[in-house]
């Protein structure tokens, strides 16, 4: 029974095989009877495993040798430590709730069985990713979740925009994964192994070593860390590879909640935290991680301010929150980053599922300006969405407050660079509150602005959808209380207030804190003020059908800023100009025009054509006249005999 944890990833895999093999003809719209119980059992086993980890039992074992080639040895192995335990809870928990939610949301879709099959496959892949004990298995999970993400973004593949978005996500991720793959190779070349434990043990010994690259000598640890971070940038949609995440919203909303909010996109943060032994040794890499995180947080938040598509606003918000997590990792507060990952998993999944519930009621409408006044029609959705928004805005008491505050405080402590990043992060907190409540006010308050039919159709979603909302809402409120900052915990007389950070300490260590209480209090107050200001600003601008916001936009300077933000800083256009179009030009004129048509096709078509021409000549030899053949035979015979006698 000691290996029962293996069932955690394997049960969803079983569900995938059953649904993909028998779904089309036999299971059809009963697919959830396969998937949901399997993921449910997986969740229960995961909880039992987590309980074991909490009691101090860490699993790390190799099951069998996967590849043995010379000095290259890789086993399939599983590592369930404190960090994995946290991820296990997020992945299996959110996955289970999303599975349940999908019963209601995907009801009647013709790809119903396919949807559940891919959700199962995704759950399996993600679990393999977090439970692996070596880099290769991590890489396997890493690519497999990317593949599932591609399948599920392009789930409605008849829609061109959806299949394009799937391709975009996959291709953009290639750029990051290239770096990640090189990082893993470099780790093998340096350490001779790719299993976590020996690598992390040996990494301290290579500090200061350099390797020459094109004439420059590069610090080895920094290079490894940055290459690994490349992968994280792609997967977690950080600048400059963030462009795929907003487009990924073409997929069904449960997918956005599970893959593009709670789990897959956080794999980058998980990986950086897992490799903290490597990152910590390279101050340069740490600064890069922190800066990329902070810049992405602010950058994505500003774009989120002006978008009108409810799912895209939340997608930019995800980008921005992931930026926070990287910021935390970059300043060495890995446990804070993972804490934010943990709370974010709940409130962001809730926001997406809430948005899905709204879309369901609005027959697929995405534009928040065509909604309005939904509060009285959808009580459960409204209140759960409200709780999630309060949580993400950082209102005291809610989960988002504790985790975000911890990141701000840790950033504040990291010298001059930390102060700059702190200001950016605090500004982001204000913007986050603003755009989150912009959705709430525009969508749920005011007058209904959609069509008459839509208004008639408005309804609260089925229990299969609202129950997961309620459970996630509970999570979005209470999960913060396992990681209360010490200063507040002491003030409230809580014991073990920093339980979460102590729990993770064996894996990621404790960040060094040297700040005074007064400073910490100040950071907390500023963060609360930022959150409240954002909400009030949003209330002021958007309470009367957005009248005041419209009036504000008459200012030409703001108009210009709005245009830039509305076009997402023209990043997509820039990429189209410097990457997509040159690539297509090369494809058309050089690959197709020159080598394909010029070389390959001329060989492929030329050979049969010349054979054909030759045969055309040759066929006249066979006249069908017996006497002709006889003459040839006679002459040939004569010649043969003559030749034989001449010798």
């Amino acid at each position, binding site marked *: 029974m000691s290996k029962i944890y293996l069932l955690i990833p394997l049960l969803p895999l079983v569900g995938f095989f059953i649904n993909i093999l028998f779904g089309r003809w036999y299971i059809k719209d009963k697919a959830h009877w396969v998937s949901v119980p399997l993921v449910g059992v997986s969740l229960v086993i995961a909880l039992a495993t987590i309980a074991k980890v909490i009691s101090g039992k860490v699993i790390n074992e190799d099951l069998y040798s996967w590849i043995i080639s010379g000095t290259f040895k890789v086993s399939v192995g599983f590592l369930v430590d404190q960090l994995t335990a946290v991820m296990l809870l997020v992945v299996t928990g959110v996955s289970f709730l999303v599975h349940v939610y999908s019963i209601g949301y995907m009801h009647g879709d013709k790809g119903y069985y396919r949807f559940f099959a891919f959700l199962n496959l995704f759950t399996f892949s993600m679990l393999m990713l977090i439970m692996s004990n070596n880099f290769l298995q991590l890489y396997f999970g890493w690519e497999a979740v990317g593949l599932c993400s591609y399948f599920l973004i392009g789930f409605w593949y008849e829609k061109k925009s959806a299949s394009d978005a799937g391709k975009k996500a996959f291709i953009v991720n290639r750029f990051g994964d290239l770096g990640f793959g090189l990082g893993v190779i470099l780790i093998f070349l340096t350490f001779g192994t790719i299993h976590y434990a020996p690598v992390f043990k040996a990494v301290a010994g290579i500090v200061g070593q350099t390797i020459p690259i094109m004439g420059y000598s590069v610090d080895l640890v920094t290079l490894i860390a940055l290459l690994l971070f490349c992968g994280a940038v792609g997967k977690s949609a950080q600048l400059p590879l963030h462009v795929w995440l907003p487009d990924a919203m073409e997929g069904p909303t449960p997918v956005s909640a599970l893959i593009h909010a709670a789990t897959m996109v956080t794999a980058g943060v998980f990986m950086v935290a897992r490799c903290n032994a490597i990152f910590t040794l390279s101050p340069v890499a740490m600064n890069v991680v922190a800066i990329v995180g902070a810049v992405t947080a602010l950058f994505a938040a500003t774009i989120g301010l002006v978008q009108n598509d409810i799912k895209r606003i939340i997608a930019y918000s995800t980008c921005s929150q992931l930026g926070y997590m990287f910021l935390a990792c970059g300043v060495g507060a890995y446990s804070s980053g993972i804490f934010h990952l943990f709370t974010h998993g709940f409130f962001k999944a809730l926001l997406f599922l809430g948005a899905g519930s709204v879309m369901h009621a609005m027959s697929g409408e995405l534009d928040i300006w065509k909604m309005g006044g939904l509060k009285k029609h959808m009580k459960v959705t409204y209140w759960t969405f409200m709780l999630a928004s309060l949580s993400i805005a950082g209102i005291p008491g809610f989960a988002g407050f504790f985790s975000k505050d911890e990141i701000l405080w840790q950033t504040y402590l990291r010298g001059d660079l930390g102060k700059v990043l702190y200001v950016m992060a605090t500004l982001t907190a204000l913007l986050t509150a603003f755009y989150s409540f912009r959705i709430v006010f525009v969508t749920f308050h005011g007058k209904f602005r959609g069509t008459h039919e839509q208004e008639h159709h408005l309804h609260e979603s089925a229990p299969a959808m609202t129950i997961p909302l309620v459970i996630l809402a509970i999570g979005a409120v209470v999960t913060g209380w396992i990681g209360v900052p010490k200063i507040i915990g002491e003030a409230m007389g809580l014991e073990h207030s920093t339980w979460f950070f102590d729990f993770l300490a064996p894996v990621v260590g404790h960040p060094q804190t040297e700040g005074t209480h007064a400073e910490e209090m100040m950071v907390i107050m500023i963060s609360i003020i930022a959150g409240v200001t954002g909400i009030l600003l949003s209330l002021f601008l958007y309470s009367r059908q957005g009248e005041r916001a419209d009036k504000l936009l008459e200012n030409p300077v703001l108009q210009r800023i709005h245009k830039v933000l509305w076009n997402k800083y023209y990043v997509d256009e820039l990429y189209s100009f410097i990457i997509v179009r040159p690539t297509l030009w090369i494809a058309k004129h050089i690959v197709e025009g020159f080598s394909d048509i010029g070389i390959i096709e001329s060989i492929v078509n030329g050979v049969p054509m010349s054979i054909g021409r030759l045969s055309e000549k040759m*066929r006249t030899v*066979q*006249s*069908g006249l017996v*006497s002709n053949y*006889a003459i040839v035979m*006679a002459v040939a015979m004569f010649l043969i005999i003559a030749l034989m006698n001449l010798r």
Partner: protein
Amino acid sequence: MVGLNWYMWLSLTVFCIGMVGFLTRRNIIIVFMSIELMLNAVNINLVAISHFMQDLRGQVLTFFIIAVAAAEAAIGLAILIAIFRTKGVAHVDEATEMKG
């Protein structure tokens, strides 16, 4: 005394007559007769050399050739009748269906 050479010249003459007949005539029956001539030229050769070398194996082979020639003639005549029935003539240059 009639030497071996005489037989060889006779054989060669008969063979050439057969070959020329085979190559030039259109009538299938004549063509068949020409084939028989060529086969018999070979037979003359075999018998003559067999006698000259005092070895009976050559004469045994001759009987085989005569038997094979008879079988060949039977099949050939059957084909001839089939061609005659479908085409109404028995000319070799009419049967060119197998040309490329």
